């Protein structure tokens, strides 16, 4: 959208116009650090290096080594220190370097971060945003392409977001950091270089309110539901279907907890057919939840069972096999077709 897009990360004082999701996230963090002196950004390699994906690039220089810093290589400690920092009035925005390395932090996230507000009956809120570069699609090493949204969405006390394009990434991240509840923020690393229309002029942060979804392409024959990089894949499928005169609506779920059940029911109530698409393995993936919510909310309108197109129930594979694992446009279209049988 903006021809002035530049690689220089935006500073809060002189807002540049980020063109990629990486830059949009960088700018959101920059603004969050500027607007609230309690905000802290930390994790493995986020300081001097600026993060392995450069999402935190320039933040240490601009906000100081006290606000943006590298930690030792210890995920449980990174999540665990966030609890203590929050209890001492800070607003931590830790990064876990990759999805697969969230597991060592799982106990601190599930048993501590998610519960401290409850355990303390509201005395010790946890305004922690755990950023995790997530999902596959970049032919990375093992454990660098995992989809953990179902695990986090199952945890009471957590909220979970996953942006699908640059402008929304900006809005959702600011929304998350400002939220007084813990948010697990899953960044689709395959879309870091996405150049969707810029956040500047893309509507206010409030448009990404917790628990809202958005229709990224309207349609009337069936609804595709996705999040993260799979939204783009669904848009491709919708494009292909349009050539055959089939108009697919694409819903970007974006808040994976709480889920916009009403929005899903509204869309599928109109289209009467739904396909949910995700990268995570099929079984016990969030697709089951979405399928159940749609069925509960729009049963009498449903012309066919909700279809799920997901990763297979296999270990996320190495490079050459990745395209065989991830949902393809073809698989999405086959599933749409099944809703018409």
């Amino acid at each position, binding site marked *: 959208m903006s021809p002035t897009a530049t690689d220089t990360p935006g500073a809060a004082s002189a807002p540049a116009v980020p063109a990629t999701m990486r830059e949009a996230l960088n700018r959101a963090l920059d603004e969050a650090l500027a607007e609230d002196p309690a905000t802290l950004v930390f994790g493995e390699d986020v300081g001097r290096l600026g993060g392995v994906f450069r999402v935190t690039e320039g933040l240490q220089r601009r906000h100081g080594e006290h606000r943006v810093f590298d930690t030792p290589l210890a995920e449980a400690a990174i999540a665990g220190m966030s609890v203590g920092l929050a209890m001492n009035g800070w607003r931590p925005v830790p990064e876990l370097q990759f999805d697969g390395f969230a597991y060592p932090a799982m106990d601190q996230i599930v048993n501590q971060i998610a519960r401290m507000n409850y355990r303390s009956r509201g005395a010790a809120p946890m305004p922690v945003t755990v950023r995790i570069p997530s999902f596959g699609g970049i032919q990375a090493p093992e454990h660098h392409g995992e989809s953990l949204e179902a695990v986090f969405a199952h945890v009471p006390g957590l909220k979970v977001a996953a942006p699908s394009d640059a402008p929304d990434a900006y809005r959702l991240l600011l929304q998350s950091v400002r939220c007084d509840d813990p948010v697990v923020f899953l960044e689709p690393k395959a879309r870091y270089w996405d150049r969707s229309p810029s956040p500047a002029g893309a509507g206010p942060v409030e448009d990404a309110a*917790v628990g809202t979804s958005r229709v990224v392409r309207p349609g009337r024959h069936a609804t595709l539901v996705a999040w993260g990089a799979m939204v783009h894949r669904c848009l491709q499928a919708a494009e292909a279907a349009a050539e055959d005169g089939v108009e697919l609506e694409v819903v970007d779920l974006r808040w994976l907890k709480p889920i916009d059940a009403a929005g899903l029911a509204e869309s599928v109530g109109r289209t009467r057919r739904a396909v949910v698409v995700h990268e995570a393995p099929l079984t016990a993936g969030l697709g089951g939840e979405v399928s159940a919510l749609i069925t509960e909310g729009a049963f009498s309108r449903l012309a066919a069972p909700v279809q799920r197109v997901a990763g297979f129930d296999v270990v996320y594979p190495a490079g050459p096999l990745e395209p065989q694992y991830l949902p393809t446009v073809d698989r999405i279209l086959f599933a749409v077709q099944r809703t018409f049988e």
Partner: protein
Amino acid sequence: MLTREEAPRLDGDPALPAESARRLYRTMLTARLLDTEAVALQRQGVFPAYVSLRGQEAAQVGSAAAMDARRDFAFPTYREMAVALALGVDMAGYMASHRALWHGGLYDPMAARFAPVNAVVGGPVPHAVGWALGEKLAGRSGCAVSYFGDGASSEGDVHEAMNLAGVMGAPVVFVCQNNQWALSVPNERQIAGGSVAARAAGYGMPGVAVDGDDVAAVYTAVREALERARSGDGPSLVEALTYRAAPHSTSDDTSRYRDPDEERAWAERDPLPRARAALEAAGHADAAFFEQAEAECRAEAERIRDTVSAAPEPPGSDLFAHVYREPTEELARQRRVWQEEVA
């Protein structure tokens, strides 16, 4: 690090002024009496279960007394009742956790500067480091005190927390109450090398093992560690060598794994008589004091017992009240289901 035998023997020469020494004794005594009441409450079915701190009164009261309750912050496990008492926590609110009214307890942890009861062994240790780091970042002077057990020392979180504290120079004191047992597992099968205090050197921090049944020794060691932390010299570790005189919890049966002689032998090390003897030896207290203390501490323990026993059960709607600060529509919907189908 020091072994139990080499640890400083301070009860003859307490660093504590008389009034403080008497206060510590009274706190230990209240803890002992309240602990006894709590075991009875469990037998009566008022508490579903209870974890006794019997034997660890000196370690807990001595360490807590070294804290500055206005600016420091304690991160307990599930067995730090006497720490809570020494820090002035609302004890009926604390004991509510054992009555299972609310897992974290019903006291205000922020006001009390005593984190909610935490049942994950090792889990709260990184919290203490984070809190301490937050204090340093803010330029304030508080220190965190992190409590954990000998069993907890095996957990990865404890290592990560100590390393983090060392690298960041966080003002935190790690207090390991080595009560010789982690449920049924003794130190020999738990602690490679045999000493938690010895681990400190590996993180470049001071580590000391003290006689954990000597309240003055614990007080002195933790006070020194806090002074070090407060003056910017970073973390340190105090291992208080003590004994879990009671079963792990009221559900436990020690006869399956430890020698009754060991429990009997403990009587000699019981920190209560030792503190009393030290007070007497130092001329800090007379028979009248002990008589009055006994009566007052008992009254206090009974008051707490009665208050927690009579406390109302939280309403079912509390299920939904504290999950989020910013409520969600979905949870409001579920609350309605609960209202219609359960309440």
